[in-house]
C-alpha cells in the first residue's frame, strides 16, 4: 500500500491553512485582550476568552469539506488507490486533530497565564467551560489539561469526519440528488418539526410528544450527560462518518 | 546515409538495411569500423528500436555486419565485396529492367538509350563510384 506518500501529501495540504488559522486566532485574541487595557473598563470587570476549540472545530469541519477532491485526484494520478487514500486520510486526521487539540490547550494556558498576571482577562478551554456549565467534575490542573486535550481531540475527529463525509456525499450524488439533499435537509429541519408538532397536537392529543420527549431526554442524557459519554459519542460519530465516507469513496469515479 | 522514406513501398527495416549497405559500399563505414547502435539508428530516424534491429539483423544474417558483445556492431571483413556481388546479381532486375520499361513507355529506342548510358558514364567518370542518387 502506498499510503505513506499520500499521508504526507494530506498533512502538507493542511499545513498552510492551520498556520494562517492560528495567526488569525492569536491576533484576534490579543487584539481583544489588549482592548481590555485600552478601554476604560469598570473596576473588577474581566474579559473571558473561552472555547478556542469550538472555533478550531468549525475550522476543521470546513477544512474537511474542502479536502476531498484534490487529494483524491492527486492520489490517482500518482498511483495511490482509494483504500490507501482513505487510510492516509484517517492517519492524517489523527495527527492533525491531535496537534490542534494540543495547540488549543497550549494557547488557552498561555492566555490564562497572560491574563493571570494582569487580572483583566481569563481564559478557559471549551472542556472547562462545558464542565463548569453542566458536568461539574472536580479536577486537578493536570486532569483538566489532559481531559481538555482529549475532549478537543475527539470533537475534532468527529467534525472533520463529518465535513469529509458531506463532501463525498455531494461528490457521489447525481445532480438531482444534490438538489434534493441540498434543499431537503435545511427545509426538513426548519419545517418538519413544527408541522409534526401541529399534527401531533391536532390529531394525536400529543401522544407523539409524550412518547418522544422521554426518549429524547434519555438520549441527551446518555450522549451528553457526562464528559466520558460525550467523548465516547464523538468517537462513535467519527467512526460512523468515516465508515460512510469509505463506503462512498470505495466506488468513487474520477469526474 | 540517406533518410527513410515513410511513404515508400518498402518496409522501413528494409530501407534501413539498404541505406546501411549503401553507406558501406561508398566507404562511409569502412570494414572493421564500428557502426551506430540500434538506439542511435532509432533516435536518428525516429523509428521503433525493434524495426531498427530487424533492419540491422538482415545484414548480420548476411555476415556483412557482426556483433561484438558489449562493444557494438562492426562492418565485417570482406563486406564490401559481398555487397558488390549481391548488388551485381540484382542489378539487372532492380535498375536495367525498370529503365528499359520506362524507356519503352517514352518511346526511347535501344540505340538512344545506350547513347544516354554512354554519355552518363562519361559525365560521371572521376566522381566516386557506386553512389546512386
Amino acid at each position, binding site marked *: 500500500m*502506498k499510503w505513506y506518500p499520500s499521508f504526507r501529501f494530506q498533512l502538507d495540504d493542511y499545513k498552510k491553512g492551520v498556520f494562517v488559522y492560528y495567526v488569525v486566532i492569536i491576533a484576534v485574541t490579543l487584539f481583544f485582550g489588549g482592548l481590555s487595557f485600552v478601554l476604560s473598563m469598570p473596576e473588577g470587570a474581566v474579559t473571558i476568552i473561552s472555547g478556542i476549540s469550538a472555533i478550531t472545530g468549525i475550522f476543521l469541519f470546513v477544512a474537511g469539506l474542502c479536502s476531498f477532491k484534490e487529494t483524491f485526484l492527486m492520489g*490517482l494520478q500518482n*498511483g*495511490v*488507490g482509494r483504500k490507501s487514500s482513505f487510510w492516509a486520510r484517517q492517519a492524517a486526521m489523527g495527527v492533525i486533530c491531535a496537534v490542534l487539540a494540543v495547540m488549543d490547550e497550549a494557547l488557552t494556558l498561555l492566555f490564562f497565564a497572560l491574563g493571570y498576571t494582569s487580572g483583566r482577562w481569563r481564559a478557559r478551554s471549551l472542556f472547562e467551560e462545558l464542565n463548569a456549565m453542566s458536568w461539574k467534575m472536580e479536577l486537578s490542573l493536570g486532569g483538566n489539561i489532559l481531559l481538555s486535550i482529549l475532549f478537543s481531540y475527539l470533537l475534532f475527529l468527529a467534525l472533520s469526519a463529518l465535513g469529509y463525509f458531506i463532501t463525498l456525499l455531494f461528490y457521489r450524488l447525481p445532480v438531482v440528488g444534490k438538489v434534493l439533499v441540498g434543499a431537503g435537509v435545511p427545509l426538513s429541519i426548519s419545517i418538519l418539526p413544527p408541522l409534526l408538532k401541529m399534527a401531533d397536537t391536532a390529531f394525536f392529543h400529543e401522544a407523539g410528544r409524550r412518547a418522544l420527549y422521554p426518549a429524547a431526554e434519555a438520549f441527551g442524557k446518555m450522549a451528553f450527560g457526562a464528559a466520558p459519554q460525550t467523548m465516547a459519542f464523538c468517537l462513535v460519530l467519527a467512526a460512523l462518518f468515516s465508515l460512510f465516507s469509505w463506503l462512498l469513496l470505495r*466506488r468513487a469515479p474520477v469526474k | 546515409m540517406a533518410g527513410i522514406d*515513410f*511513404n515508400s513501398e518498402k518496409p522501413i527495416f528494409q530501407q534501413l538495411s539498404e541505406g546501411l549497405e549503401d553507406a558501406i559500399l561508398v566507404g562511409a563505414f569502412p570494414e572493421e569500423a564500428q557502426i551506430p547502435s540500434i538506439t542511435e539508428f532509432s*533516435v536518428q530516424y525516429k523509428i521503433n*528500436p525493434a524495426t531498427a534491429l530487424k533492419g540491422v539483423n538482415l545484414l548480420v544474417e548476411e555476415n556483412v555486419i557482426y556483433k561484438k558483445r558489449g562493444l557494438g556492431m562492426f562492418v565485417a571483413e570482406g563486406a564490401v565485396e559481398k555487397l558488390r556481388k549481391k548488388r551485381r546479381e540484382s542489378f539487372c532486375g532492380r535498375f536495367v529492367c525498370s529503365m528499359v520499361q520506362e524507356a519503352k513507355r517514352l518511346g526511347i529506342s535501344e540505340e538512344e538509350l545506350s547513347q544516354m548510358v554512354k554519355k552518363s558514364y562519361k559525365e560521371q567518370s572521376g566522381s566516386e563510384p557506386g553512389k546512386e542518387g
Partner: protein
Amino acid sequence: MGISVEQVAKRFHTVQALKGISFHLEKQKIYGLLGRNGAGKSTLLNVMTTRIFPELGKVLIDEKDPFTQEEALSQVFLAGEQNCYPEGMRVREAFRWSKVFFPGFDADYAKRLGESFGLPEKTKIRSLSTGYASIFKLVTALSVNTPYVLLDEPVLGLDANHRELFYRLLLEKYAQHPFTVVISTHLIEEIASLLEEVLILKEGKLLCQEPVEELLSRGYTVSGNTCLVEQYVQGRQVLGTDQIGGLCSAYVLGAVDPESLPEGLELSRLDLQKLFIQMTS
C-alpha cells in the same frame, strides 16, 4: 506479465463507451492506441488506471487487479486528458511530489527535460497553456520510470519542433531503459514509425491489435489510371479508394503480386494513416 484487459465494458448514461474489449500488452513495447473521437480511447485508459470503474470485465496489471490490489497501481503512470493536480500547485512542486509518490522519479532528468522544452518551473500547472500543459504531462511521464506509461494525446497543442523533440526523447528513454508505452493520438502519420504495435478502436470495440509492419503488409496501394485500377481491383478485397481526376488509388487487402500488375499501374505500401481512415470510417 504485462497488462491484460478482459471483456471490459463501460457505459455513460446512454452512451456505451466500451463494448467488451480484450487485449494484452506486453512488457517493453511501444503501442499506439488509435481511434476516432469518441471511440473510447480515454475511457479505456481511465479504466486501466482505476480512475473509473468498468461495468463488466477486468484489468490485470502484472496479474494483479489494480482495483483490489492497489500496489499494482504504482506500476502504471497515466498522463491523462484531465489535469489531476491541485489548484495552485506549481510545476516545481509537482515534480517534488512526483518523487515522493514514485521513488523512481528522476527529478534531475525532469528538470533538464523541462528546460529543453522551455517549461516554466514556477508557473502554476493549471495556468499553463495547452501546449505547455502537454509538455508538463510528457516530462513527468518520461521521468517517472514506471514499467507502464500511458500517454493520452501527449502532443496536444505542441508545435512541430517540440513534437520532434518529444519523439526523440521518448526513443532515447526507451532505448536506455525499455518500458511499455501506450500512446493515444490523432497524429498517426507522425508516430507510425515509432510504434511496434497498434490497437485500433472503433465505437467502443477493438478493431485490431497487430504489429505495424504486419498490418501494413496485409495490403498495398495501387495507383494509376482510374479505368485500369478499377479493372485491377475486380475480385480483390478493396478497403477504399481515393480519386483525383482520372487518377485513382485503391487500398487493397492481400499479398502483393508485382508480376500480375498490369503496365501503367504503380504499387506502393499502405500507410498507417490511410489504412486507419479506411478502417474506421
